[in-house]
């Protein structure tokens, strides 16, 4: 017979063992979620400096996202391999993920996540046999780390005709964003105090030029409750009036570009409106790089010396950057609404940053319509104010309409705000106040 004290001792050590094991497992999960093993990546990556073009693209096909290889093969683009980098989120976000790991749960109702507090809600690697893996990835994208507020002080969009190889329009914007909830770094944490409708985050955009659109402003408030429709308003300078946007407008070409409001940030819609399917994990070349090491160009001379990533390839529709091997989760999103202009999006979501850096977008008939490329820089190799922020800095975007042979390119000067952004900067009244 075992003495009670010995039984207690066994119980004690068993608890300690399992706790320790769980902690080790959790630590592994966190490490796996946010770290990048550069040695491993180097071992499977083409040599930095390698050029992939139409002559050798067949040799690298397995490293290229769908359609990208075809575009290279057609001579539209060639890509240069860069050295792998790791963009680790801010420690506060990692700590929050560790603290709350395992607490967030998906409800049976679509678009509802329970008990989410902070950090990455589902840091565990996705599994193909998990029917909810796609939804979890979608929520990870929604709550991915980004600084709690951000500004794009100089933001240039160019509409390009790929047949005529000419620029049709150039738009310049100011943009900003603010997280109202689930904040990690900027005080107040975790939420802004005056938020009666429980807005999760807000995006603001103001057209600086061209003259016919000057002063047009867009405000989107995404609700914490994903079952609620986002609120969107457009300030029309030509009318001096704020007009509420119907959701149809968020799935329409924004200001005539090849980009929808729903395409902002990769996917700027409700999670519940899509069927999310995890399609597997792949090591693939994605547009991650160090901004300062790219061949930069001057656009609208910046007094602080900042220069922008440029474009190259067919009609200058492709970012002039280096690509690197990244672990990516392939995520398919199919709209439930049959009136939606798309049949699906196929995202390549970077596993470390949870940013959808590449996507194929299919029209209603199922034909490939657009290819989206979103280039991210390490914050420490970007504008000095971004150093240490841990935020993957969105630097360049190409949205290429394969069918119409047209593209929209975006250049960013993304910054941690120099002046604290407030809730009142993201209200309908602010649109009027900033208008005339």
């Amino acid at each position, binding site marked *: 017979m075992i003495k009670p004290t010995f039984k207690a001792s066994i119980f004690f050590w068993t608890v300690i063992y399992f706790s320790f094991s769980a902690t080790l497992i959790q630590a592994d999960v966190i490490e796996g979620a946010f770290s990048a093993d550069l040695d491993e990546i180097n071992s499977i990556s083409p040599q930095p400096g390698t050029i992939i073009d139409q002559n050798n693209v067949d040799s690298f096909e397995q490293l290229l996202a769908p359609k990208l290889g075809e575009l290279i093969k057609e001579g539209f683009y060639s890509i240069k391999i860069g050295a792998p980098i790791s963009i680790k989120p801010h420690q506060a976000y990692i700590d929050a993920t560790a603290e709350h790991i395992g607490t967030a749960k998906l409800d049976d109702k679509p678009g509802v996540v329970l008990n989410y507090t902070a950090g990455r809600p589902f840091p565990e690697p996705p599994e193909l046999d998990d029917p909810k893996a796609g939804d979890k990835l979608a929520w990870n994208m929604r709550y991915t780390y980004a600084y709690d507020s951000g500004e794009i002080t100089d933001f240039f969009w160019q*509409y390009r005709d790929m047949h005529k190889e000419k620029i*049709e*329009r*150039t738009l310049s914007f100011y943009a900003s964003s603010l997280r109202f909830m689930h904040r990690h770094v900027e005080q107040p944490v975790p939420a802004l105090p*005056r*938020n*009666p*409708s429980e*807005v999760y985050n807000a995006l603001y955009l103001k057209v600086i*030029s*061209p*003259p*016919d659109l*000057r002063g047009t402003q867009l405000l989107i408030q995404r609700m914490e409750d994903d079952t*609620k*429709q986002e*609120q969107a*308003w457009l300030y029309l300078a*030509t*009318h*001096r*009036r*704020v*007009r*509420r*946007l*119907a*959701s*149809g*407008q968020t799935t*329409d*070409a924004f*200001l*005539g*570009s*090849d980009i929808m409001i729903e395409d902002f940030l990769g996917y700027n819609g409700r999670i519940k409106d899509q069927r999310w399917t995890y399609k597997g994990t792949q090591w693939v070349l994605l547009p991650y790089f160090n901004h300062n090491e790219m061949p930069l160009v001057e656009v609208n001379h910046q007094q602080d010396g900042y220069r922008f990533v440029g474009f190259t390839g067919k009609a200058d529709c492709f970012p002039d950057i280096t690509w690197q091997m990244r672990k990516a989760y392939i995520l398919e999103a199919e709209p439930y609404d049959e*009136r939606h*202009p798309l049949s699906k999006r196929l995202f390549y979501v970077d596993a470390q940053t949870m940013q959808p850096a590449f996507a194929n977008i299919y*029209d209603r008939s199922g034909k490939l*319509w657009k290819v989206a490329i979103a280039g991210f820089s390490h914050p420490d190799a970007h504008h000095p104010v971004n150093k240490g922020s841990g935020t993957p800095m969105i630097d360049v975007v190409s949205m290429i309409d394969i069918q*119409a042979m*047209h593209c929209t390119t975006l250049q960013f000067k993304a910054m941690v705000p120099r002046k604290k952004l*407030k*809730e*009142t900067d993201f*209200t*309908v*009244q602010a649109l*009027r*106040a900033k208008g*005339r």
Partner: protein
Amino acid sequence: MNSQWLFKRWSRFVTTVFFLSAFTSSVSAWNSKDGTLEVHGFLDSTTHARLDYGISKQRMRGQVEWSKIFKPNGLFSEISMHGTLRATYDGAYDLNDDEFGDSSGSNVFGRSSGLGNLETPWGMSPVSAGNPNLPGGGNFGFNLTTNPDTGLKRVSSELGNSNNNGAFGGGLDFYTPTRPCNVDSRGCLPGYMDATENELRFPEFTDDLGVLREIYIDATMPFDNGDEINFRVGRQQIVWGRTDLFRVLDVVNPNDFSIQNIYEELEDSRVPLGIFSAEYRAGGAGAFDDLNFQLIWNFEKFRPNNLGQGGQPYNILLAGDLFRALGNCWDNGCTVSNFATGLVPGGNLSTDFPAHMIGIRNVNLPKWKADQGGFRIEGVFKSVGFSLNFLSSYSQLPSLRGGIPTTNGFVGTTIPAAGCPVGFPLCPLGFNPFDPTDVPNLERLRGFEPAFDVHFPRVNLIGGSADFYVDPLKSAFRVEVAHTSGEEFADTSQRRLFSESNVLRWVVGWDRQTYIRALNPNRTFLLSAQIFGQHILDHKDITTPFGSQIGFQDHKDNFIGTFLFQGFYMNDRLLPRVITAYDIGAQAGVIAPAIDWLVNDNWRVTFGGNFKFGTGHREADDARTSNSFPPFTAGPACNPAAAGGPTPGCFPGGGEFSSIGIRRGFEPLGRFKSGPIGMAQHEDEIQLLVRYRF
């Protein structure tokens, strides 16, 4: 219009565009090095060709907008100054001077349906001094030397003939001088409708300093709790509404309808005013996602809507034409078709009124008291944008108040050959039998007499608005409602021919982006509809013993629907659109197709048309049968010689009485039933805009 004429106009236009492009190639927006001063603007050329009338607008316009941001100072975190300068030259008065300029107008003829629609020259009507059948003998007629038969136009002649069915079927016709007021001052209303040719050509270069379209200072004072108060002081536009084309709440600034009737963008047609605006921005407060309180005070002198003046190509409701005609009637006398009724021969006869008998005497613009203002509570509550509004101001639309002293054209020294009217045995020939002291040229009060002063009464508005999104319909909705008190309406049952009434106006707007894949597989179309309602709450519609209607001559309840259909092609560089509007009461509509071509980031070309359909002219009681000059104006139904004898209770008794409503016509009050669409049936136009923005 012949080909030579067209070539001449077109070549001028091409020259204009060429000049514009040459000039603008060196113009671009400008920003200071420190980014605190920004200057931009546009130059454009607008050509409107009106079917049957030729060029109605050939406008060259330049606008410069600037903003200067200052450093935070003291309590203010943000201080900036903004301005807009605008200058316009409208060549329509030179290019088409025989329609709208100093050669416009012609001689005119008064008409008499009682004489088989006989036309008689201006000032030579059947009813004039010397007419042997005129009761009292009379002092009718006017001086053709000072009020000659030139440079005139029949009001509403653009809409076709007035009603002329039978001896008593003829409606009233008034005649307006058409030439700019420096060329022909007849009928010009000082301070209101008195523009010279240069002021028509260069509308911003007036005493109101319209060239300084906007100039204001913005300053924001933050509080520790995140709230802020913003002050905006200076000449500015205050935009309260959420509607297009018609205004319900967006009434703080008056509107300039002389630019292009109701079709000019409100941004361009609002008349900016000197206003002090203080806005407390509470942001998210309590249950509100956004909450703001705005107080406004208009400190600039009162400015009414610009309705356009007689002879201008755009005068809404053709009110400018009528006002000028009536102004001339008062100052100089005038011919009015079909006015006299019940004389021999039976039927309506053209009448030459002497000065100071009918018309518009004065325009009483409110004196500068800086007593106009209002407030608004605005915010977002549970995803619904809302506002509550109050405004106390003077009406921007004129009210014609009768009850001013007038002369009596019937009294005189000439004894009519026919003697006194039948049934008036005591009539002392040539004099008013009821008042022998009523002598020629004596001005005294007479009820129901169409002689007016123009007033702008105080109007108080209480209203609210909301916008919201309905997900199952994928649609955004806009709602506005406004209740006003103090507005005045023409009322033929009242001695002074007007009454006050409360009015309820509302609008519901619907906006939806919709795919029509057969037309554009990858881009939606904007569908936007609005329905406006107006209810005159104290409307009076009195049925007389003769079965006719007198009282208010506007619709008690009326509705106007609008619909916009816009497509987007070539990455929004080609924008076809159709705007339609239909006035249910007027049974008149408009369809305005247009196509915008954005040539590049600076150049834009818009080609379109504006075509009307429907009934247009509407009939109304014209107060012709009121008895303002007893016993001379008893009207046919009160004539003892009428078949069946005089209507019991109608006469005698001697006193004035209101219209008995049995004579109706298009002028002058039918315009209220026709509305701005019905009264512009002739304004079918082809329009071309070339704009360079910088």
